């Protein structure tokens, strides 16, 4: 049907109540404005209707979203349907598996890379510590100790840099623990060895005694060793002192007679000063009650020098700190004592650093889970809020809940139009149009040659997409003999309701729908009649043909439909 200009003016006059001449004048003004704008290359927008624009010589009209939705209200909300569902279902699985595998691989790669570095550092530190132990096993090699201490000091920056690696903290701490264990175990072994060596003191094996001399002479030897080292260092004989055990053995062999001579009062000892005499006295009177604080202070450094392995020194930080604190208060009038104390202080400092690092790391360890623990909770809370918000938005958008600003205005306007149609006293064009549409539906039942007109009332797209659809499809539970489960002809069966069907009529009048169904059944079609309840438009009655396993089968079957039915149909899932 064509509405020409004069009929349009009549409709506008009836609808707006404005006089016909005024309507014509308004309309001519509007047309002139639009043409003027288009000639000037401008677009012209009518609020709530659309935009007229000129692109080249073509004039386009772009309806507003509301108008486009209202015109397409029968199909609005219908989304494209994938035809290759089975294929799609199969394909993503391997990709998901791959995706599951890849992240783990990536995670492993990410983790192992930083972890390997700490392990290498750990190995290095182990080597350093073990060398320390090895060096410490020889109490006479003082320069080695110092060099080891220097190495440890030099390694500190690396350790500090290594600490910056977050994942490496635990490893470093473990390595330190391992180092301490190694050192501790090494000390234990040392002590055991020393005990064994004490038992073997009477043995005539001089090499073993040279490597690990009698504890009585150890301190004296170390003192002499230090002094000799100092002397030799002054003389520049570093090589002899820095050499390893084999060379040290020779040195000890040379030193031992001197030490033995020193154990006995000798002029050499007198020449070496009062300190050595005091050291000898201290070593001889360790167990005596007359030990003064100064002597204790002197003993500790000797023990550390002799073994630097003492369990008490490593484990008792307080003693070391106390020693360090007492040193300036003690009678340090003698310079050599201070010289002997200095390397001990370095060693204590390095130990203190290690212990402080351990303490820091131990204090850091419990903080990590505390800081990480709230994060997932917050994420879950945020995710929960987002899901709830999305759900509410979805309910509002699809019209389940009328939320101003979220529910599309098109649905509201359609609802208003339907409500106006239900009121017989109103005189809007919407009423007339809907009334005409209903009339057209009734005519369509009598004249099936116009399938376009038969779909009168709106099929609620919202109800299509939601699960609120209540269908009244009458099907049989059992498949009749000689009939396939799926097909265009026959009787609807319940087991085939999981498939697709071809909707040919969507009517608001149940009687008309029943009539269409009867007529199509008489032609041999498998006819489904479904009631689609709609809160906005009332009940719709859909007449559809066939039950098909897939949409592809339905599309193939729809091509064979009569031209009357194939003019305006759509395939949908049986609801």
């Amino acid at each position, binding site marked *: *049907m*064509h*509405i*020409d*200009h004069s009929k*349009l003016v009549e409709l*506008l006059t009836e*609808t*707006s109540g*404005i006089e016909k001449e*005024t309507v014509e*004048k*308004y*309309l*001519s*003004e*509007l*047309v*002139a*404005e639009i*043409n003027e704008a288009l000639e*000037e*290359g*401008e*677009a*012209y*927008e*009518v*609020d*709530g*209707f659309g935009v007229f624009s000129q*692109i080249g010589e*073509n*004039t386009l*009209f772009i309806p507003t979203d509301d*108008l*486009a939705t*209202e*015109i*397409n*209200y029968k*199909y609005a909300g*219908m*989304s*494209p*349907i*994938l*035809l*290759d569902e089975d294929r799609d279902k199969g394909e993503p699985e391997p990709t998901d598996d791959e995706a599951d595998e890849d992240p783990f691989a990536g995670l492993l790669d990410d983790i192992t890379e930083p972890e390997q570095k700490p392990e290498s550092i750990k190995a290095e530190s182990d080597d350093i510590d073990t060398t320390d132990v090895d060096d410490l096993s020889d109490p006479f090699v003082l320069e080695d100790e110092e060099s080891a201490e220097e190495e440890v000091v030099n390694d500190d920056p690396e350790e500090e840099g290594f600490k910056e690696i977050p994942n490496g903290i635990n490893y470093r701490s473990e390595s330190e623990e391992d180092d301490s264990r190694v050192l501790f175990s090494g000390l234990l072994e040392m002590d055991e060895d020393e005990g064994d060596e004490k038992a073997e003191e009477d043995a005539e094996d001089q090499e073993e005694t040279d490597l690990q001399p009698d504890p009585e002479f150890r301190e004296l030897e170390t003192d002499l060793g230090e002094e000799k080292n100092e002397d030799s260092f002054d003389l520049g004989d570093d090589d002899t002192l820095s050499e390893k055990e084999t060379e040290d053995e020779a040195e000890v062999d040379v030193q031992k007679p001197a030490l033995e001579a020193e154990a006995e009062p000798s002029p050499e000892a007198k020449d070496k000063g009062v300190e050595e005499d005091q050291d000898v006295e201290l070593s001889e009177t360790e167990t005596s009650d007359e030990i003064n604080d100064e002597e204790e202070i002197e003993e500790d450094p000797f023990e550390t020098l002799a073994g630097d392995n003492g369990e008490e020194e490593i484990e008792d930080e307080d003693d070391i700190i106390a020693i360090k604190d007492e040193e300036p208060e003690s009678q340090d009038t003698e310079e050599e004592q201070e010289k002997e104390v200095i390397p001990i202080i370095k060693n204590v400092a390095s130990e203190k650093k290690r212990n402080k690092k351990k303490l820091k790391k131990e204090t850091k360890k419990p903080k990590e889970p505390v800081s990480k623990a709230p994060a997932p909770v917050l994420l879950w809370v945020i995710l929960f809020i987002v899901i709830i918000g999305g759900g509410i938005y979805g309910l509002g958008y699809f019209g389940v809940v009328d939320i101003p600003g979220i529910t599309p205005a098109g649905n509201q306007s359609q609802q208003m139009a339907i409500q106006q149609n239900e009121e017989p006293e109103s005189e809007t*064009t*919407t009423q*007339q*149009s809907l009334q005409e*549409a209903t009339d*057209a539906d009734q005519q369509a039942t009598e004249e099936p040659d116009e399938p376009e007109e038969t779909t009168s009332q709106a099929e609620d797209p919202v109800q299509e997409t939601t699960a609120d659809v209540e269908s009244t499809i009458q099907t049989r539970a059992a498949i009749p003999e000689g009939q396939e489960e799926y097909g265009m002809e026959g009787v609807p069966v319940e087991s085939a309701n999981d498939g697709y069907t071809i909707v040919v009529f969507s009517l608001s009048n149940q009687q008309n729908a029943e009539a269409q169904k009867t007529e199509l059944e008489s032609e041999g079609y498998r006819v489904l009649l479904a009631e689609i309840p709609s809160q906005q438009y009332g009940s719709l009655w859909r007449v559809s043909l066939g039950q098909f396993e897939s*949409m592809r089968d339905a*599309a193939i079957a729809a091509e064979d439909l009569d031209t009357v039915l194939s003019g*305006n149909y*759509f*395939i949908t899932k049986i609801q």
Partner: protein
Amino acid sequence: MGRLRRAPSANSWRDNHKVLITMTDAFLETLGIVIRDQVIMKNSVQINGLGTFNPVHKNQVQEKNADGQNVMLPPKDMIEFTVENKS
């Protein structure tokens, strides 16, 4: 597309163009409703000097997406505007 000119409301029309009798918002709203309803009823609406609004129905179409998936697009009712042949 050049600048966008809006259909003036009653007040702005009077203020800017100083016209005593002009289009009103009610008229523009009614025009939109009438054309919409007629297009919904599959009627074409002609406006002299401007063009014709035609209802267009797009059938359900099977297409292949860019990713290779076959998709059945739903049917669609649209409005098309045909400019008047001024010659």
